[in-house]
């Protein structure tokens, strides 16, 4: 079954690693929805969050292949786990004297911030999951969007442990996951 998967990887901070990771997705003809890379609490290690839509068995196959990349220290598919997912977007929207206050109201509802004001435009900073940003984007569209920049999703699992900080877990080979029934899919948390 095709669904969105969120993979998080701990990788060595070296040139070429992103290429190796991306190359394995390309080989299977996956289109990466978003990819976010940043430093971690450990020196020389970076964390990648990759969101990709695809058949679960195929994604699991790519995950195993990625786990074999020498510079990938660990990679986990956290789609089925309790996670906090966030994305940041900067949206530059047209604003005139007559529309500005209406935009500000919408921004407040979404607990977003206005980070730049010009005579004919505003830059709005918003964080949240993908649906929240999509919703805000759709509401602002009527005012005229000049530009939008999105970071792509980053994610952590809830609770004190994380998929990438667990000590050596017993090596259990996961069979391709069975698809969830549609009613089991949870609604966005905002």
């Amino acid at each position, binding site marked *: 079954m095709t669904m969105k998967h969120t993979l998080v990887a701990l*990788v*060595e901070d070296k*040139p*070429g690693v992103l*290429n*190796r990771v991306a*190359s*394995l997705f390309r*080989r299977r003809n996956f289109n990466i929805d978003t990819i976010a890379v940043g430093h971690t609490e450990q020196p020389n290690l970076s964390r990648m969050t990759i969101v990709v839509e695809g058949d679960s068995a195929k994604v699991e*196959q790519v995950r*195993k*292949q990625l*786990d*074999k*990349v*020498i*510079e*990938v*220290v*660990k990679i986990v598919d956290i789609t089925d786990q309790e996670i906090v997912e966030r994305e940041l977007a900067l949206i530059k929207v047209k604003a005139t004297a007559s529309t500005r206050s209406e935009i500000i109201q919408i921004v407040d509802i979404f607990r977003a911030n206005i980070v730049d004001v010009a005579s004919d435009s505003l830059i709005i900073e918003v964080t949240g999951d993908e649906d929240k940003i999509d919703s805000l984007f759709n509401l602002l569209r009527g005012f005229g969007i000049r530009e939008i920049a999105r970071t792509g999703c980053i994610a952590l699992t809830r609770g004190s442990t994380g998929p990438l900080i667990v000590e050596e877990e*017993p*090596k*259990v*080979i996961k*069979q*391709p996951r069975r698809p969830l029934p549609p009613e089991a899919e949870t609604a966005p948390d905002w």
Partner: protein
Amino acid sequence: MTKTGAQILCESLVMEGTEVIFGFPGGAILPFYDALLQYPQLRHILVRHEQGAAHAADGYARATGKVGVCVATSGPGAANLVTGIANACLDSSPIIAITGQVARPFIGKDAFQEVDITGITVPITKHNYLVLEAAQMAKTVKGAFFIAQTGRPGPILIDIPRDVLQESAEFVYPDKVDLPGYKLTLQGHSAQIKRAAELINTARNPVIIAGRGVIISKAYTELKELAEKAQIPVITTLLGISCFPETHVLSLGMLGMHGMAYANMAVTNADLVIAIGMRFDDRATGKVSAFAPQARIIQIDIDPAEIGKNVRVDVPIVGDVKNVISALNKQITPGEHIDWLRQIEQWRQEHPSTEIRDCDELLPQYVVRQIWEVTKGDATIVTGVGQNQMWSAQHFIYTKPNSFISSGGLGTMGFELPGAIGVKVGRPEETVWCIAGDGGFQMTIQELATVVQENVAIKIAIINNGYLGMVRQWQELFYGRRYVATPLLGPDFVKIAEAYGIAGLRVKNKREVIPAIERAMEYSGPFLIDFMVEPEENVFPMVPPGATLAEVIERPKPQKVNP
């Protein structure tokens, strides 16, 4: 001690026990060649094309179990290695390819003979490196050798800019590697092994399918013990050939597209498949959804990414095949499976897949069988790809471990000659027969010069049918006998051999076969025989592409009536 990058590279190769390097020099790699003069313990074998260097290193690695090393210069030299590296990657062969690169200030400027070889080889190497300072050289080579030969072996490429080879640095060879992301699972999970043993102990119709993993892991005795103790027949994949003696009563030979009909029947009717170090290639499984439809599947592999990749698996065991089988052997109870073995024997009698038909024509199968007869099976066979490869797999009876060396996964025509050179260099005392087709042989024929220059005493049998035989067979069977681009005008191979300084013979009749092979065996140096075989002979049995293993075509085509 301060040394240049090139010297550090040589020192590191010596530290890793390298004895032979297959290579071809050029501008960017010249500092390495210059340093090589100070290291006479590193034997350099000059090939005539870099693809040959990679295949020879691959053949050497397969024959010895050690890492094969090949060297090329930047640009075209590096690019020419690509086919050989991919070949080693698909067949899990540990080679290290060292390439020169343009000097650091020129990288990324489309300099003369610059190519992004690390970028090119990302998908076909186990890992690759660009060394950007001489101080990193020793650490890199150490890591490369470690990765190449541990776990599932594979090719590593090390790209070195010319000025890094010339730069000086302190040489200290590290005693351990620092690879936080490199995971090895060598021991099987005990609970899974227990489950596997239970399945084996209760199976009624079990089969073992053994692949190249058994050879890589040198698990010959463990496999034999498993098969004999539980009385389970052993089928091999193409690359698993020679992991189990084919004269053994439990041996069923090869499965798959050109496998033994009875082996395919056994898999199709099995209630348990024990897959050991094999990866369910489509040439082995046939239509994958109908593969072993009644069987539970135990898969043992060192590479977790192979588990469940192509077929559903009931009991996956990740680990080194040797460790896993020996752990498994402690938990299995002696079995008998008399009815099952009797059934298989009946299939074997009813469907004799390796019978060579009795006729006056010179049949390629007959040639292969006579090589076996004359050598008494005491030879390593290196093949090309296509019909010659399948006949070599079917009609030579392999009893010595790791005595069949062939390009399986990538199916690289042109592997035979340079591959055989590497094998012979790795096993100088052994008889090495290169069984080639007239098509593939012409792809790397230039390496005959390497054979002569290095006096590599291989015996070459060209199965010359004047066609790209396997493609022609497909055209005959599936494309209405329209032979497009498969009739092949070859040169006079005996004269070619003579021109290079190699002794040779042409064989046109059946009765000349044995004397010619005997002559080749008696001759001390390299020897070539051009066997002019029946042009339109086909490889059978055959499972048509996309068909299930049960849908095997067994019968050779009817005799041709001469016009």
